[in-house]
């Protein structure tokens, strides 16, 4: 039975077309996933179903939920439907809850807003029951908890509890696990699946993660630039992709690169017994402050020419370790050295070592000054050099760096807003390459990119490995990327390296239980080589 039907929905904001002739349906108990790259109109489709569109939107077409045409209802009727017939879960669990209300208040609100006859006590009982259903039992998570007292995954469970408290017939989940760690992601996805199966609830899921899509959905809808390019039953679609874009998307998602072989040489980076602690706020006024060990006795080394991955979940100490390696933070004990020289000496970062390292960050938007031109941006590392190139030598260095990352020398005179996300990340890599560093740190460098762009950047890295004989440490939570772009991998948990070895052998025969859990939790794309070809 069809629960939700979207018929020929088109939508524009101030005459800019956002959605073009969208037609799709969700049945009771069915999981339908809308997928596509950023800007494809996935989220706007979800908001259109909720009729929570931004101001200035004009729509044509119909959205029908159980014979009621949502696009023709007035606001009070829509308020009755939202939360009651349709629940919605959002991407950012950290900000989706009101910080000043308890989780109990927020769940009971859904119940009482739709039915004033429910007493406060009755609403509380039902909130307890709902929180129980989403895996937040009362003895550990009483109603009086505030959102800031919960982890990201727990908050997402509260958001789900709010959405399903009235047992809606349709649940919309917009990137519900994108902000979560892979093990938490697995739990939340299982929960959503269970809720759809048990209650006969339709689930419309929006996600850019094709592995999640393949794993969860009964049906897949692929969107691109506001249009549906292809849709169908998951198994059928995965085996018989018709549209080139769908093929490209899945190919890019499972993209593998081949790194040039290396002959291990002398050690370049050595990390020995490193400990980095943070002081926690005092619990009593005169007590000794407790400390939190973000990095706990970590040792490893990277030899020249090696490509090493560092994986682990958020809060495991990856970023702290990165900062310590860059010499941005002083460590409490242990030594980090590059070519035998310490990165931090005498209370200051050691500049001689600092110029041997460069870093590429996750956010290609935030890591550039928008008021500088590209030539100035990518020559920033020159200030590390005792005798930076000037005049024609500088121009030559800029041209060479831009060409190396697939841009043109003419791009040097542009500003950063003139580039796309992928191009910006290329510029970030150019900035790292320009002083020919011995070691590059990639800190979640491809995590914010769309799959097709990510595939291009991974190819670029493989080419650069060939051309420049790069040595790098690739820090990421994305196991599939680390698997293809590194020779060796370190697995970090709670400040410690729990496993470390050749990438292929760690992924194929993980020894530590944590590595096994991590690999098991990560959704994997089925083998699609036939379908894509």
């Amino acid at each position, binding site marked *: 039975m069809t629960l939700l039907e979207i018929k020929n929905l088109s939508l524009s904001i101030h005459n800019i077309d956002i959605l073009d002739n969208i037609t799709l349906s969700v049945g009771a108990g069915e999981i339908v996933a809308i997928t596509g790259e950023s800007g494809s109109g996935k989220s706007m489709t979800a908001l259109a179903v909720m009729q929570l569109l931004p101001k200035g939107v004009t729509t044509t077409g119909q959205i029908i939920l159980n014979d009621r045409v949502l696009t023709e209802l007035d606001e009070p009727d829509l308020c*009755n439907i939202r*939360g009651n017939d349709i629940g919605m879960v959002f991407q*950012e669990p950290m900000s989706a809850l009101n910080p*000043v*209300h*308890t989780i109990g208040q927020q769940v009971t609100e*859904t119940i009482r*807003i739709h039915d004033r006859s429910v007493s406060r006590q009755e609403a509380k009982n039902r909130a307890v029951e709902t929180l129980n259903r989403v895996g937040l039992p009362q003895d550990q998570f009483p109603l009086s908890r*505030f959102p*800031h007292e919960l982890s990201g995954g727990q908050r997402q469970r509260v958001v789900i509890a709010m959405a399903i408290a009235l047992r809606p017939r349709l649940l919309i989940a917009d990137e519900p696990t994108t902000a979560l760690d892979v093990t938490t992601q697995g739990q939340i996805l299982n929960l959503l699946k269970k809720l759809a199966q048990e209650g006969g609830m339709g689930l419309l899921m929006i996600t850019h993660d094709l592995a999640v899509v393949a794993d969860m959905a009964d049906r897949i809808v692929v969107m691109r630039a506001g249009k549906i390019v292809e849709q169908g039953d998951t198994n059928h679609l995965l085996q018989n992709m018709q549209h080139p874009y769908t093929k490209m998307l899945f190919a890019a998602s499972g993209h593998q690169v081949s790194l040039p072989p290396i002959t291990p040489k002398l050690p370049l980076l050595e990390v020995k017994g490193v400990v980095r602690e943070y002081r926690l706020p005092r619990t009593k006024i005169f007590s000794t402050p407790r400390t939190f060990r973000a990095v706990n006795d970590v040792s490893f080394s990277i030899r020249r020419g090696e490509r090493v991955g560092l994986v682990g979940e958020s809060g495991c100490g990856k970023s702290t370790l990165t900062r310590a390696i860059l010499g941005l933070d002083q460590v409490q004990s242990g030594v980090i050295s590059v070519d035998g020289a310490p990165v931090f000496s005498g209370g200051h970062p050691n500049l001689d070592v600092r110029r041997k390292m460069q870093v590429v960050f996750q956010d290609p938007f935030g890591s550039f000054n928008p008021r500088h031109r590209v030539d100035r941006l990518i020559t920033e590392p020159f200030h590390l050099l005792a005798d930076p190139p000037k005049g024609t030598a500088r121009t030559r260095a800029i041209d060479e760096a831009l060409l190396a990352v697939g841009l043109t020398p003419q791009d040097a005179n542009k500003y950063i807003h003139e580039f796309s996300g992928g191009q910006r990340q290329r510029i970030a890599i150019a900035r790292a390459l320009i002083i020919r560093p011995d070691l590059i740190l990639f800190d979640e460098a491809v995590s914010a990119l769309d799959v097709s762009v990510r595939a291009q950047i991974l190819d670029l890295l493989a080419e650069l490995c060939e051309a420049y004989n790069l040595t790098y440490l690739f820090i990421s939570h994305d196991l599939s990327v680390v698997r293809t772009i590194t020779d060796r991998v370190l697995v970090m948990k709670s400040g410690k390296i729990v496993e470390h070895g050749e990438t292929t052998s760690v992924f194929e025969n993980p020894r530590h239980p944590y590595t096994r859990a991590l690999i098991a939790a990560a959704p994997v794309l089925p083998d699609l080589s036939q379908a894509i070809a």
Partner: protein
Amino acid sequence: MLRYTLKRLLSLLISLAVASLVIFVVIEVAPGDPASFMLGMNAQPETLAALRSELGLDVPKVQRYFAWVSGMLSGDFGTSYTYRTPVIDMISGRLWVSLPLALYALVLSSLIAFPAGIFAASRRGQAGDISVMGATQLGVAVPNFWFAMILVLVFAINLRWFAAGGFIGWNNGFWVGLHALTLPAIALALPQAAILARVMRSSLLDVLGEDFMRTARAKGLSERQALWRHGLRNALIPVLTIIGLQFSFLLAGSIIIEQVFYLPGLGRLVFQSISARDLIVVESIVMLLVFSVIMVNFLVDLAYAVVDPRLRSRT
């Protein structure tokens, strides 16, 4: 919450101690000897010395500081150099005008600003928003004494609803006193309300863009319900900060308004004492103002914690 309160209280005491020291040092270091000022340019050295010893200006500075602080703690603020009356009497009389006036103005400004800010934020970009913002622009730009003069012209001279100035005290009853303070309070409140309304609006607009507001709408709350239940309390923190700052200003910064309405308030007393180099009075009033600022900050801190549970646990 208790630990949070105690911590705030401790920081309050430290701030007071530091402030008293700074005030004393700054005022003592300031050039100008009160004794020679009082006796004029041609005073005899002997008379000057006698007066200095009478005023207690010849004892070592450290000793004078402790005498001043311990005096204040026991309610003895010393004796005015110029008027030869206890400072405490001079201040307390004025405080009974300035404090109620400041509170009155603050209540009025909040009563105007909250609805105006909420109204404007909920109609962002529409005619209502634009007119409220235009009015607040005017309120910020126009000086309060001009408002005061217009108010006197309209309500005292033409309509004769209020007296044009003066204050007859609280002895004739609370409402009579309040009535007399109404025009000055409105004149003080209008510019403050304009600022507060703008802060309220922008703070609320920030909150309206938050993810949890969208969650609230997805639960089935109407735009209005979402604003009242989820928006307002979250928007209150910056507004509380501004209210705290405004109160301190209203207490002592109302000198021009006091002048316009012939009110015997603190502002006028500060002005007179500074021109007369009556250091002890200046010191005491400044200390009193510092005390009130710190006290208000303390209350604002407590209010933060009531509004935002994250602060309660972060101690």
